[in-house]
């Protein structure tokens, strides 16, 4: 086990990258403490898998270093790094039994057969594979095969990190939550660092203690699920996490106050507003639909659509051309035509060029 540090990491698939868009990973500086459960969240094609493959050693980064504790492993081969990885599609060795599959990483490293047996049996018990140990791996269902992949990752006692690359993609929806809670349970039991890559916010937020949000090769925020929800550092985080995502409203700053379409809006981070507008950055107001309420006065909007989402309704209104979503609890009256919206000042923030000021 080890602390994993990514030091100024960049990667490009282009032979001689010249501009930022040539880089799949633009600049990654992250430190992962030992034993944590991390999720790497981002849209498809943002470089999540690239980053994972760099940590596992399947790829060599163009620039920067990967450190396990203080050991530089940037150019070490995957089997020297002592890591485990579970892939999007289950990888099983078809001709072997489930037992042999689980034993494979140990046997390759010359572990004594008696120890192999006890380890495999322990892991099979953890992953609910005990009853199938003598069966051929090729005959199992997708979730069974994915459990084998997982088991092969767990079977070595000393792995530094176990990485999951969207491991639930091919699993039936009703089995997804089972496997997810299994993972969570396993993490609490063995306390190995786990990194879970996904584009699904539910998977990331339920699995991880710390979520790393990465759009397009840059880490924009690392935080607990609650932090990501309550205090997004970047409009991307606000928008990507939450359903519906955070409202992002273009605004101007006058005398240190945010003004949206002629209306003054009270913001939580007013102190830094003047500096942001002085620097000539594009300013926006970020407010989650959960903190938007109907009021007698405030921002005037045209109600366009009301969608019922169970305990509350999603109200979609337009202020000019800008869409604003509000979550309104069941039972509250929703006026048709024009309505006024109020924002909770404690949860309304100013963003400059996408970043929280």
């Amino acid at each position, binding site marked *: 086990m080890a602390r994993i540090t990514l030091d100024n990491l960049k990667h490009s698939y282009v032979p001689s990258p010249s501009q930022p868009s040539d880089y799949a990973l633009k600049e990654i500086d992250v430190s992962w403490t030992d034993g944590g459960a991390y999720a790497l969240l981002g849209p498809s094609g943002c470089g999540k898998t690239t980053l994972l493959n760099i940590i596992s050693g*399947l790829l060599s980064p163009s620039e920067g270093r990967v450190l396990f504790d203080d050991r530089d492993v940037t150019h070490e081969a995957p089997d020297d790094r002592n890591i*485990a990885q579970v892939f999007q*599609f289950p990888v099983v060795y*078809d001709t072997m039994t489930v037992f042999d599959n689980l034993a*494979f990483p140990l046997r390759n490293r010359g572990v004594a057969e008696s120890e192999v047996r006890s380890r495999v049996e322990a892991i099979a018990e953890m992953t609910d594979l005990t009853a199938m140990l003598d069966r051929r791996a090729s005959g199992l269902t997708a979730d069974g095969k994915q459990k084998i992949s997982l088991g092969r990752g767990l079977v070595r006692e000393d792995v530094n990190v176990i990485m999951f690359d969207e491991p639930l993609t091919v699993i039936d929806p009703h089995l997804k939550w089972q496997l997810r809670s299994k993972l969570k349970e396993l993490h609490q039991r063995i306390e190995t660092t786990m990194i879970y890559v996904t584009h699904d916010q539910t998977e990331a937020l339920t699995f991880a203690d710390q979520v790393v949000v990465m759009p397009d090769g840059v880490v924009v925020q690392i935080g607990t699920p609650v932090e990501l929800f309550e205090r997004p550092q970047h409009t991307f985080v606000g928008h990507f996490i939450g359903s519906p995502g955070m409202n992002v409203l273009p605004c101007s700053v006058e005398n240190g106050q945010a003004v949206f379409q002629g209306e003054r809006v009270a913001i939580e981070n007013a102190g830094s507003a003047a500096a942001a507008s002085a620097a000539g950055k594009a300013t926006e107001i970020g407010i989650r639909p959960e903190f938007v309420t109907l009021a007698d006065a405030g921002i005037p909007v045209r109600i366009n659509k009301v969608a019922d989402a169970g305990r509350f309704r999603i109200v979609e209104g337009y202020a000019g051309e800008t869409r604003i979503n509000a979550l309104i609890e069941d039972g509250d009256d929703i006026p048709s035509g024009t309505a006024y919206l109020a924002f909770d000042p404690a949860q309304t923030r100013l963003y400059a060029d996408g970043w929280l000021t």
Partner: protein
Amino acid sequence: MNKVENQKGWLFVLPVVILVAFNAVIPLMTVVNYSVQETFGDNVFFFEGVKWFEQVLASERFLDALGRQLFFTFTILAIEIPLGVAIALTMPRKGIWVSVCLVLMALPLLIPWNVVGAMWNIFALPDIGLLGKTLNSIGIDYNFTRQPVSAWATLIAMDVWHWTSLVVLLAYAGLSSIPDAYYQAAKIDGASSWAVFRYIQLPKMKRVLTIAVLLRFMDSFNIYTEPFVLTGGGPGNSTTLLSIDLVKTALGQFDLGPAAAMSIIYFLIILLLSWVFYTVMTRGEDA
């Protein structure tokens, strides 16, 4: 559903039934018909029962040809299958060299069989052929028209040259269908390259290799044109394979009865061995 209504479905099968009847069943039945009769021409036939079958199965000439045929087929299978797999493993997976390799590999397959025979005949001539002359000039006594061993070596080399590509292409197709994740997982699991071959590549190639073995078995058991052009079955009878022997009996001597009996035995042997190969290679496979 009423079963009587479904009988109409046979109408749709009729065209293919007629086609197969004309190009397979009727000729085969003609052969069966000949195989139990004696004829002296003029469409006069006498029923002979299984006499020709007994005669063929007891004839040393047939058994020798069968022995040579089996030796030939198993030798080229033993060379072409491992060699084909080995070449496929060394071929590049990505980049422009993929197409170059595939085209080079496909070339021998595009050459007409009689041309292959003629090419190798000239190539191997001991006095003017590149191969024959070179071998003799470095002190190897080589003459495929006079020495059975030379003739066999040339025959096998020719078949390996001509048909290994087929195995390569099939094996390569099998290899390229393996997702990268398998290799990555194997790397992380610390697998040696032998283990990667044994537990990933070979199992994934099993289906295409079954097809390769069956195709090469059937084709090599039926081989006629190339050895006919290369050696004509000689020197003596040393490279007379089953098909050459059959043509000599049927068209050389016009022994239609024995030739027909031989054809049927020949056909049944191929059928039986194909079944054995298929059963052995797909044994223990899950659906």
